[in-house]
């Protein structure tokens, strides 16, 4: 049975027999149900918690994600413990699949198929849409903190129509100005980052996720760092590329 709490341990290979499923994620052939695996939790905008969820409308190009499949109990006579299913993409040009994870490589629709392990047959399939990140929308375009305070910045990747995109997007975070005033974990790779206020002044934190960029202005109240003047940061946070 698939592990719903084990994060990345949640596998694309599943043998669960699902009963009473909704039609929302039913495969095109009607033989089973596809679910969006949310083991990584809120680092994926397609997830509101760590439970498997409905398939998202679109996934960001460059993002990784996981899909699980469970056949209808009446469709294939598959019993728990029998060999399961592996999710494969119709084209390696659009999606790269490894044992547990799919990476969206290019914009467009791609069929993900539940292949029956050991039979070389397809049980069902579903189409997902990949869209490029047009904009990174910060939860806050600017922050005002007191020295010693911490705050988390979240980014929302949006497609060219302004719709949110699912998937775990790789991001890089940098303090581009005012490094005396704030500190971040520059090794962070998700769409969330914790900003820690060090000393009075202004700073700019820049996030780059795939091909999009956002600047977040941070103002720290309190005494400036001893012996240094703040380089100052832009005050118009939320500039996106």
């Amino acid at each position, binding site marked *: 049975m698939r592990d719903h709490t084990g994060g990345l341990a949640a596998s694309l290979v599943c043998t669960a027999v699902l009963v009473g499923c909704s039609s929302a994620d039913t495969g*095109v052939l009607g033989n089973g149900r596809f679910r969006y695996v949310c083991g990584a939790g809120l680092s994926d905008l397609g997830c509101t918690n760590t439970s498997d969820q409905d398939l998202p409308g679109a996934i960001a190009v460059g993002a990784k994600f996981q899909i699980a499949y469970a056949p209808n109990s009446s469709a294939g006579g598959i019993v728990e413990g029998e060999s399961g299913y592996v999710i494969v993409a119709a084209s390696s040009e659009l999606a790269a699949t490894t044992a547990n994870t799919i990476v969206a490589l290019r914009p467009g629709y791609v069929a993900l198929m539940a292949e029956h392990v050991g039979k070389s047959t397809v049980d069902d399939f579903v189409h997902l849409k990949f869209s490029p990140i047009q904009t990174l929308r910060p939860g806050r375009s600017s922050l005002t903190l007191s020295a010693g305070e911490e705050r988390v910045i979240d980014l929302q990747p949006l497609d060219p129509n302004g719709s949110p995109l699912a998937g775990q997007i790789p991001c890089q975070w940098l303090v581009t100005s005012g490094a005396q005033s704030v500190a971040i974990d520059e090794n962070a790779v998700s769409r969330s980052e914790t900003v820690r206020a060090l000393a009075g002044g202004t700073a700019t934190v820049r996030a780059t996720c795939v091909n999009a960029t956002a600047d977040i202005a941070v103002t720290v109240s309190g005494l400036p760092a001893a012996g240094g003047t703040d380089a100052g940061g832009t005050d118009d946070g939320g500039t996106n590329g």
Partner: protein
Amino acid sequence: MGERALLRLLLALSPIMVAGCSGIDHATLDGVTTMPDDSMLTNTTGRMRTGIAAGLRPRVWTHDLWGTHEEGSGGIDVETSNAAVLRVAHVTNDNRYVVWAAAPGEATLSVTLDGESAMRVRVTVTDQP
């Protein structure tokens, strides 16, 4: 030649006559599933974008001296001439198939009955817009 001799000759030739008048009548790709973009697959041609898949059920009819009959799914198969471009798989425990476009190019989708070609559809696969 007497009547009995003529009757014997006709009886001897009847299997050949029946065989000569029987064979594959026509085939169809039935129940082609909806594709999310401008991809299409019909009984005569196909145009699919890379990454798109479609489900379908191949049907074959044969004819003989007694008329036209639809064949059971047992001897029917669906094949591709170029698996690098167009791939085909049988649906688990079902008489349907899934066809998907793996890479740009051209391939011929063939429906066969006991190994004999019943239908050929030329499919062109192009990149997503």
